[in-house]
């Protein structure tokens, strides 16, 4: 079975700076995959390339068997790629439910359908009680959940989560983890960039480690943390004293 998402030899250059170099990764249906790496490793750039915010300098991106390399972001959403943003981008003047309705409109044919779908998603994300509140009035962890809910309303096949667990209190983080698990249970595949290792490593099926724009290693979390290359990337060369 073909992977849901595949990047083939993706390289991204910004006038002299190489943000990603020959990155080939794949995400299988139903997986939760973590994309990790030190600062400047090229994770956000990779996300933006997959979501369609920019075109790669070289290489191609395949989604659900289709070459989407040149496809604009809005169309990729229609194909089934949903995403959240690292810096939350809510529609501040709109209410919580209106935010989600914008997402639901991709698939719904009528406003009534969109509204119903939005209600369902808010229930799922635990924000139903805040439906009519202006998005600007939400607390940060709620805004994060709204980002996720809004993307879910587009009925994505692949959900790209950009640091959704960063900066949350332990309880909020646990709620977040639960949400991600439930998302996968509904059949959505998840690719998440994360820094909060102690939370994300137990969550993901597989982890891909980027460093200096390249794929360093990928595999099960338990193996990754013992890999001397990973240890060296995070801690510095002198630290690679093995497991």
């Amino acid at each position, binding site marked *: 079975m073909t992977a849901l998402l595949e990047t083939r030899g993706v390289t991204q250059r910004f006038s002299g700076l190489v943000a990603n170099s020959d990155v080939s990764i794949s995400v299988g249906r139903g997986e939760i995959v973590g994309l990790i790496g030190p*600062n400047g490793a090229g994770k956000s750039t990779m996300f933006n390339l997959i979501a369609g915010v920019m075109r790669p300098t070289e290489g191609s991106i395949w989604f659900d068997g289709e070459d989407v390399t040149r496809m604009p972001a809005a169309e990729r959403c229609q194909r089934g790629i949903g995403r959240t943003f690292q810096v939350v981008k809510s529609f501040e003047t709109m209410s919580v439910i209106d935010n989600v309705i914008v997402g639901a409109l991709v698939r719904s044919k009528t406003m009534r359908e969109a509204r119903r779908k939005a209600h369902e998603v808010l229930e799922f994300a635990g924000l139903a009680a805040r439906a009519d509140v202006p998005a600007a009035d939400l607390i940060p962890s709620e805004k994060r959940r709204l980002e996720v809910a809004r993307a879910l309303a587009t009925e994505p096949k692949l959900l790209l989560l950009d640091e959704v667990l960063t900066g949350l209190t332990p309880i909020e983080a646990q709620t977040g983890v639960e949400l991600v698990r439930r998302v996968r249970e509904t059949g959505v595949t998840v690719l998440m960039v994360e820094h909060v290792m102690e939370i994300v490593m137990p969550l993901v099926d597989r982890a891909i480690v980027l460093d200096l724009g390249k794929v360093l290693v990928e595999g099960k979390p338990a193996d990754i943390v013992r890999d001397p290359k990973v240890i060296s990337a995070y801690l510095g060369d002198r630290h690679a004293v093995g497991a």
Partner: protein
Amino acid sequence: MLSVHEVTTAYQGLVAISAVTIEVAKGEIVCVAGANGAGKSTLLKSIAGAERPRSGTVTFDGARIEGMAQHMITARGIAYVPENRRLFPRLSVRDNLRLGSYLYRSEADRDQPLDLVFKLFPRLSERLDQRAETLSGGEQQMLAIGRALMTRPRLLMLDEPSQGIMPKLVDEIFAAVKRIRDAGMTVLIVEQRMAECLEIADRAYILQTGRVLMQGAAAEIMGNPDVRKAYLGL
């Protein structure tokens, strides 16, 4: 010299560091390490005045400085080199350095640190008229540190000086940091890649999700097996 006590800082409601306590004694090189998002930059910004702590105190040479304006803190003798260096790209190396010196009135006072800067970073003296944006990453980092030195600080704070720089230059930079300490200044370095940093540091702290996870002499930390867990979570 510097005492950070139970400092908590938040960005837009999200807590970045929580009840962090660190001490830096005069003449030390202290390293603060930790993975992305651990709060290292926030810690430095809270000390430098770029961010205002929600609670806790920062004491420098006996005086309380938390919540003070950044330029006042610089005037007290703390120089901060931020993660993205923030050079003036279209100004020359010379001008960038000069701009660090305006705390001092007289021409002589202003130029005094130049000697040290050029001794530490001979490359800079070779490129005085070049525009900052044309320098390589490593050279830019040297210039940023040089500019900070022009304020004649007693405490120098560096945020991830090795980021994005090739290993050879990283070694040069850390060697320079040692000599800065030998010249009488105190240094606080934040690093993600800590191995090279620990070699020159006296003591180190490791932050994880905004809290101090462990602390101790650099040599101890280097040998500690839990360090890896702090970074990689499992």
